[in-house]
């Protein structure tokens, strides 16, 4: 279970209960800017005539995140009041991680974050970010994030070593994350 998914790819995926019912689909991903993590999903109904639902799905209530569906234990996993799951959006450092800059602890700008990479499986978690590099080449690169130094809606500050462990595609991210992990262990 080391498959990665871009957060944007989660949008439109069906939300399916363990009982096999599709109860909603993912409308949008709500980021927790304070932790650089995913906080919740907003939902919309399924089908042609379905509009947005006044329900949200907290990250902690997700049973598993997969390439074909988001699995929840049952319908009660969805919260009635979308506000509880999404309120922190406007809190301190609010806003969205997408669009924020990635800066190393020593002050070099790595680029602009345009997607979040999530590991699928039963314990889905954010493993890195996709950034558009700050130089003129404007490449899309993937950056593993193990322990961000600090996160705000404006920027994500990462350890200096991060800049040396980037990947061009999702397949290379595992090795990059492993390399960074070993490096950070040595620095302790």
């Amino acid at each position: 279970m080391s498959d990665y998914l871009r957060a944007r790819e989660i949008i439109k995926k069906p939300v399916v209960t363990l009982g096999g019912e599709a109860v909603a689909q993912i409308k949008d991903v709500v980021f927790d800017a304070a932790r650089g993590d995913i906080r919740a999903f907003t939902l919309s109904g399924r089908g042609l005539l379905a509009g947005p639902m006044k329900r949200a799905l907290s990250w902690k209530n997700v049973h598993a995140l997969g390439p074909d569906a988001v699995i929840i234990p049952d319908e009660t996993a969805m919260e009635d009041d979308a506000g509880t799951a999404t309120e922190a959006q406007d809190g301190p450092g609010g806003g969205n991680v997408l669009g924020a800059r990635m800066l190393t602890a020593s002050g070099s700008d790595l680029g602009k974050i345009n997607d979040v990479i999530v590991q699928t499986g039963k314990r889905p978690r954010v493993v890195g970010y996709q950034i558009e590099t700050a130089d003129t080449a404007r490449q899309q690169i993937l950056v593993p994030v193990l322990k961000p130094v600090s996160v705000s809606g404006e920027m994500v500050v990462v350890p200096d070593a991060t800049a040396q462990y980037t990947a061009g595609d999702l397949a290379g991210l595992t090795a990059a994350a492993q390399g960074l992990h070993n490096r950070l262990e040595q620095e302790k």
Partner: protein
Amino acid sequence: MLLSQAVGRPVVNVTTAETIGTVTGCFVSGRPARITALHLNTRGHGGHILTWDNVRSFGQDAVIIRSMEKLRPDKHIDSQDPAHPSHDPIGKPVLTETGELHGTVEDIDFDQQTGHIQRLVATEGDMPGETLLGSGSYAVVTSTTT
């Protein structure tokens, strides 16, 4: 036995010695994985649902029931009900609990004495019956740990 072999088998009311219809499909539940009900095509009356506990015997040539009283016409079944025709597992996508599609259900291998599901036959390989977690109108969900 395979469900595909059970389909078309006559259903006989042992009290009146009459054939009341034929088996057309089934409904299943997970944890434990078993057949919960059969869907019947009853002559002149459309479809009916027969819950497994009302099957007296699932024989080689006929399914025996004791009375007609327990048959429920499928027209009166709410779409949320697990016995609604939209919950028939055959042809449904198989979705693992980690959210990966694994083909569609082609057949179900079950014990005709107990209704216990031994094996799910899917287009992308068979799965042990005990992996079945649930079956709904969208998909059949299976666990990844066997």
